């Protein structure tokens, strides 16, 4: 149970949140035409006769878009409707060439499903929570108006006109900005795993309509407002915060919440009214007579299911159960599909390089990736996909540590050199003479020198000041220029100090 509350003058208020997320389907062509869909192309270069709604043009559903939406539905354990239908949503706007958007109101492709957001104490999510998803339907995107090209006229870019969107509609199951943020992130993770949407919110591939209402805990749902086209996780959370507080202020001031559409202003973090219910369009939905009902056969569904990758929840469980990773590490590595992929390639190569099973090197690889490598990449302003160190090179480095050739601290130095030069770890160790000393005789000689030179400290140690052990280790390592095998140093010191 979320404990997030707005503290009003009349007591605590609970916030109720539902999200409608428009996710652009990854596909080379549009939902009903063969036009390309690349982001950032010159205006009106990806427009077919159909997208421009020329007289007599007809839509034909693109199988790939339907397939991606079905796969997405399967990934959230949703009911897939083998019979669905397209409806026309009628309204006039200059970015809508047909004068209607082809969407699915009455019979969506995907029905009830759910996704689980993970417990996050710090964010105020005490336990895992299941968020219901009401439906996913597919629809066309509109074009884009450009108001800055001419002093008195607006220009229209139809590149986006007809691009396939999935509208993913949640139940009003979220109770805090953090839950909503976690839901959007998780959904984005799933979409990227499935490959049905690239999840690039800054490019508009994912946009959220945020429905917010407030109520006294235990009361009926209050009247909601819908804030349109919010395009980052942070903005979604800001929208909710602002909107919930605004609603509480209105209600406590004796006012009423009007069901309306609002806009989020990222510059101020506030929302403002766009249009009220009274001005709402009458969209005159009706089944698109240009399109037959969409009927999916079992073979198609089977193919969709078979093409699904391992999904984040399953992967996370496997990392903990089979690879023995900590829950934290497993969560970090599975949060993004690219990270998980990189890790799994690394794991395979690291195991091979050390002649071990993946499960035996998984902790080492995960720890190194999370606590060493991410930080190092971050400093360089790079990410995994632009990493100057390949998984093969990283596996070699891990093997050098695993076999005791270099110590963990030397490995840090080696990594830095690798990132700088792109050279292989083995070559660097060789060149720089960083190989670890495991020769007992050489270490013993140094230990004897140090103990002899620090007779007072030896006496104190023997009197019970055992914390001095670290001092002797440090001195020995220093004398060995950091290259002594720490385990051997420990053993010798323990034996000599008795």
């Amino acid at each position, binding site marked *: 149970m979320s404990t997030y509350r707005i503290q009003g003058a009349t007591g605590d208020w609970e916030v109720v949140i539902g999200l409608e997320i428009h996710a652009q389907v990854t596909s080379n062509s549009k939902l009903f035409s063969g036009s390309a869909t690349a982001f950032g192309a010159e205006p009106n270069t990806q427009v077919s006769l159909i997208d*421009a709604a*020329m007289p007599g043009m007809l839509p034909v559903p693109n199988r790939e878009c339907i397939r991606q939406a079905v796969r997405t539905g399967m990934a959230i354990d949703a009911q897939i409707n083998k019979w669905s239908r397209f409806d026309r949503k*009628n309204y*006039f*706007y200059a970015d809508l060439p047909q*004068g209607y958007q082809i969407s699915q109101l009455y019979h969506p492709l995907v029905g009830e499903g759910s996704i689980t957001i993970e417990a996050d104490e710090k964010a105020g999510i005490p336990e895992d929570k299941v968020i219901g998803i009401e439906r996913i339907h597919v629809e066309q995107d509109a074009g884009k108006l450009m108001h800055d090209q001419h002093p008195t006229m607006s220009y229209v870019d139809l590149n986006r006109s007809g691009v396939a969107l999935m509208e993913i509609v949640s139940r009003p199951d979220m109770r805090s900005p953090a839950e909503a943020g976690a839901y959007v992130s998780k959904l984005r993770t799933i979409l990227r795993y499935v490959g049905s949407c690239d999840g690039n919110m800054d490019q508009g591939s994912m946009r959220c309509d945020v429905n917010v209402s407030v109520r006294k805990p235990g009361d009926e749902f209050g009247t909601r407002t819908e804030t349109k086209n919010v395009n980052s996780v942070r903005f979604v959370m800001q929208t909710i915060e602002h909107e919930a507080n605004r609603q509480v202020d209105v209600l406590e001031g004796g006012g009423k919440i009007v069901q309306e559409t609002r806009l989020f202003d990222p510059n101020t973090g506030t929302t403002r009214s766009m249009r009220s219910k009274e001005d709402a369009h009458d969209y*005159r939905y*009706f089944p698109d007579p240009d399109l037959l009902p969409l009927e999916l056969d079992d073979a198609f569904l089977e193919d969709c299911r078979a093409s699904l990758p391992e999904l984040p929840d399953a992967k996370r469980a496997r990392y903990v159960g089979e690879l023995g990773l900590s829950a934290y590490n497993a969560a970090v590595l599975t949060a993004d599909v690219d990270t998980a992929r990189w890790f799994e390639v690394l794991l395979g190569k690291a195991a091979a390089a050390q002649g071990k099973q993946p499960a035996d090197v998984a902790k080492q690889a995960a720890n190194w990736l999370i606590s060493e490598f991410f930080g190092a990449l971050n400093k360089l302003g790079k990410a995994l996909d632009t990493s100057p160190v390949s998984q093969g090179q990283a596996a070699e480095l891990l093997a050098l540590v695993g076999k005791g050739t270099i110590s963990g601290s030397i490995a840090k130095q080696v990594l830095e050199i690798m990132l700088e030069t792109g050279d292989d770890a083995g070559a660097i160790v060789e060149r720089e003479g960083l190989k670890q000393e495991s020769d007992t005789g050489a270490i013993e000689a140094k230990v004897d020198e140090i103990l002899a030179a620090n007779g007072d400290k030896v006496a104190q140690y023997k009197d019970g000041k055992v914390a001095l052990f670290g001092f002797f280790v440090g001195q020995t390592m220093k004398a060995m220029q950091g290259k002594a095998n720490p385990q051997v140093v420990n053993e010798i010191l323990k034996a000599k100090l008795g």
Partner: protein
Amino acid sequence: MSEITDLGVAAIRDGVAAGTFSAVEVAEAFNANVAAAQGALNAFIVATPDHAIEAAKAVDAKRAAGETLGAMAGVPIGMKDLFATTGVQTTAASHILEGFVPQYESTVSQKLWDAGAGLLGKLNLDQFAMGSSNESSHFGSVVSPWRRPGSNAPLTAGGSSGGSSAAIAARLAPAATGTDTGGSIRQPAAYTGTTGIKPTYGRCSRWGVVAYASSLDQAGAMGRDVTDCAIMLESMAGFDPKDATSLELPVPNWTAALVGDLKGKKVGIPKEYRVEGMPAEIEAIWEQGIAWLKDAGAEVVEVSLPHTQYALATYYIIAPAEASSNLARYDGVRYGLRDLPDGAGLQDMYAATRADGFGPEVKRRILIGTYVLSAGFYDAYYTKAQKVRALISQDFAKAFEQVDVLLTPTAPSAAFALGESNEDPIAMYLNDVFTVPASLAGLPAMSVPAGLDAQGLPLGLQIIGRPLDEQGVLNAGLAIEGRAGFTAKPGKWW
């Protein structure tokens, strides 16, 4: 030999193939007729004599080279101005598309050109195919070549494919394309003593045809006789991956299987089509048709289509609903007319453009359609109409368990005078009473000329068939044609 322009599709094609005359001679003859009649009949919105000549030259060259000729080789035709034609203005007889020249060719017209046909011009029609008299065209009404004896009163050539029917009847074209949404091929054919067939919904691609009501619109062939229609329809039909409602089925060789012998066939006479106040002449021609089909060997039985009385109301909900949405794209933004008054914003531009660009009948149907789809009325009108539509289809399905084809009059009267019915839109809608049910059920149906009324005006009979049974329809049509011996043609006054 009779004049070339008295010949139909089969005779022209065979004559060109045999070298009796060249395709260019044919095109020139029809081009001349088109030009001579334009002022009086107004059948064409645009004449394209050069296109006709060029296509003819190509056919003549092919023949000279000994190449195989297509099924329509050397036949110049008229194209209803609802079909997009590359480089030739396509208007749907509207002001809003006046001057619109497509960069693309409709599937149906392309198939006809591929079969060797040539384009005489774009034929007049009711604006956006909405009408039964051709009076809603922005480019003026088509005038029928037929007249009442002793009267110069201009008569309607029917609608919406009135340019097509008039052109064929007046020998301006041997054949023409039409489109049929609620009777727009069959009624004009009946009014002009010509033959027209609307195939099963989905036989002909709608790609590149300006949409009126998508779930009803279907292209078809119009010509002098049943055989010509069969030849032409074969060239027009076929699966088109660009139209999601197109039927993925091979096109039968209807022409080869044409036979007027109906032995073993059963013909149904729907009793609900005996509407109150039906003129005696219509009743009589229907009886005559029954006798002809019996003579051809068919057994004739009465059948019932109990929901017939709701068909017209159903049609005038569904068709306008779809039209109100289909015509939303004509907004002045991307092509066609744009009225941009000084200082106008987007909404003003929409209002001005559409107010100026659409005629009254089109506006009426957009308003009706918008109303029946609006919140609070949708279920009472649109949903209900769809249910009734399903019942009407079931009526036909039941009847076709019993019989092979149905025989009815095509229209409740002969052609009326221009201006006679256009005061009362409901009276105008009643013209479609016999044709609309088959449209709602998506069935193949045709009109064949059966005789003349007391005033010497043509009357037609309608044959309705099972889904995909164009052959049965054509054969019954052929049986009537052979017995009716309809040879009347309008006296030339233009």
